[in-house]
């Protein structure tokens, strides 16, 4: 078997991005931002001895009278309406605890999950006992942020819908989000209107690199679909073929994924990692361009530093051309 070894090299850093962030005022904790008491203090600052002092290392942002310091890297901070991908850590009495790379585990209430058959009724004791039948520890779900508690914990909801159509009458403006356990666990409700996505690959990146867009569910033309969670969890899965099919009748999608699909998914995963290493924002266009730029190379070569730079450079070029 051929083995490849690399020796460490001192690499030349890419030249500074022109014009971006060079004017920003960078601070470290303990730095005085201003002594003017007219300003309101936002995140990343604290008041000490009549001065506004930074508490994180980052750039100062000022909006009218509000000053805040935005740190370079933080955990995910939930905002209402975000799509997140999370993993169930605990099954509690009337809720699930979901790990979403945030400061506290998120909460998915039993009442926030649609019942099978689309019924609208009060959750009973039997529903509580059947919770584990729905979601167990270790399952992956995609959900939307419904509310943020005062201590920063986030409350999620999964209003499961058929693809493209809005069945949930109580919130017509809701975008589609699915329920996507990745484990091999079977639902006991035969009429669950829950689209099971089954198998796929999860990539964990920093939340600051996921661009906010109108929709976070993308079906890429290369043959795979991707869910870009705002919390930095990215789920890549093979595009389900029968989208319009009624989800009455549960299908455990455990049939083996074809080699072609698996290659597409691996390539996408490596592309996402190379974009993240070069600190580029992730959205459907950038991922797609990166995928196309990587086609001449073998999948495992994409992670080599020089090929990574080349691919991302090309992606950056294409994105610039497209913009301007």
């Amino acid at each position: 078997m051929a083995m490849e070894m690399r020796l460490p090299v001192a690499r030349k850093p890419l030249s500074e991005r022109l014009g971006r962030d060079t004017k920003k005022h960078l601070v470290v904790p303990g730095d005085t931002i201003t002594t003017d008491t007219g300003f309101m203090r936002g995140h990343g600052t604290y008041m000490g001895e009549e001065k506004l002092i930074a508490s994180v290392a980052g750039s100062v942002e000022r909006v009218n009278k509000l000053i805040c310091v935005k740190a370079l890297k933080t955990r995910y901070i939930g905002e209402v309406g975000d799509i997140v991908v999370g993993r169930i850590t605990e099954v509690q009495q009337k809720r699930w605890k979901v790990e979403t790379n945030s400061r506290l585990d998120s909460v998915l209430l039993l009442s926030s999950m649609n019942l099978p058959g689309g019924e609208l009724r009060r959750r009973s004791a039997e529903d509580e006992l059947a919770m584990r039948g729905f979601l167990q520890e270790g399952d992956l779900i995609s959900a939307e942020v419904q509310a943020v508690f005062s201590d920063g914990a986030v409350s999620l909801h999964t209003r499961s819908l058929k693809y493209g159509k809005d069945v949930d009458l109580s919130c017509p403006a809701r975008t589609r989000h699915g329920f996507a356990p990745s484990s091999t666990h079977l639902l006991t409700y035969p009429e669950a209107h829950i689209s099971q996505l089954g198998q796929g690959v999860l990539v964990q990146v920093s939340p600051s690199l996921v661009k906010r867009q109108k929709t976070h569910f993308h079906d890429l033309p290369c043959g795979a679909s991707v869910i870009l969670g705002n919390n930095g969890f990215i789920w890549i899965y093979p595009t389900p073929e029968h989208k319009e099919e009624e989800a009455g009748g549960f299908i455990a999608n455990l049939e083996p994924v074809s080699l072609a699909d698996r290659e597409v998914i691996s390539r996408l995963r490596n592309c996402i990692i190379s974009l993240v290493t070069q600190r580029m924002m992730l959205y459907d266009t950038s991922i797609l361009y990166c995928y196309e730029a990587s086609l001449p190379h073998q999948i495992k070569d994409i992670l080599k530093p020089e090929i990574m730079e080349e691919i991302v450079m090309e992606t950056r070029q294409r994105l610039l051309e497209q913009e301007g």
Partner: protein
Amino acid sequence: MAGLELLSDQGYRVDGRRAGELRKIQARMGVFAQADGSAYIEQGNTKALAVVYGPHEIRGSRARALPDRALVNCQYSSATFSTGERKRRPHGDRKSCEMGLQLRQTFEAAILTQLHPRSQIDIYVQVLQADGGTYAACVNAATLAVLDAGIPMRDFVCACSAGFVDGTALADLSHVEEAAGGPQLALALLPASGQIALLEMDARLHEDHLERVLEAAAQAARDVHTLLDRVVRQHRAELRGGHRLVLGAGFPAADPAHLHVGERHGLHHGGGAVCGRRPCPGFCPGLRRPPQEVGGSASGLA
């Protein structure tokens, strides 16, 4: 040690430094991709690695959760190869626990824990090579790691050790100086306000000398602050520049047979007072080749 004078008549110490001079400090942030924050520091021959996870939900016993603050959990460990003699140090032993407790007290004073109720912040420090001033190196590394993780702090926490020999206060003691048995003091300072986070001494020192030793330690800590500040800004400039490879454990290569040892030493470009001449052995052993030309011009915005 008989026959070894810690301070010569001309005012030079064993390693050629002056009384108030620090050892060379090199540091790097963002060493591990999978942790929330990480940092590595070398103070002379003392090398320490700090990793921070958090703030995150409290694992284990829910009862430990504090309703109004975050819980800070520090663990110190010393590698078996860190001292002159290879010595196995089990995890729960007294010195590790004591150091962990001291680190916890230090960081509870500095981190703004009221902002993250019911959560936990884990700080793990490991000493890879101990040549005196291990507490100081641990605190400095942990400060950088906490900064890297984006956890709000009042200020940097900069630490340094100090001793007293022949009527002169020495700053930043090495192992030889510590082993000589004189009084030594460890100080952790919040430089901007001058507040002391932790002051520790377990030797006998006449109170007339305390003022001087304390001042020497404080001045050394402020010097450390200048250096750490520079490291943080440099790290941020690198991140903005858009190109930084970190140790590969976060994203394993798709092909396991492909050993990915290459890594750019964050400080070895352009030099400057913080850069060291020798590569730091833990992470970049070996050659430095001339950097490859990156084809095409680097465009601006992405």
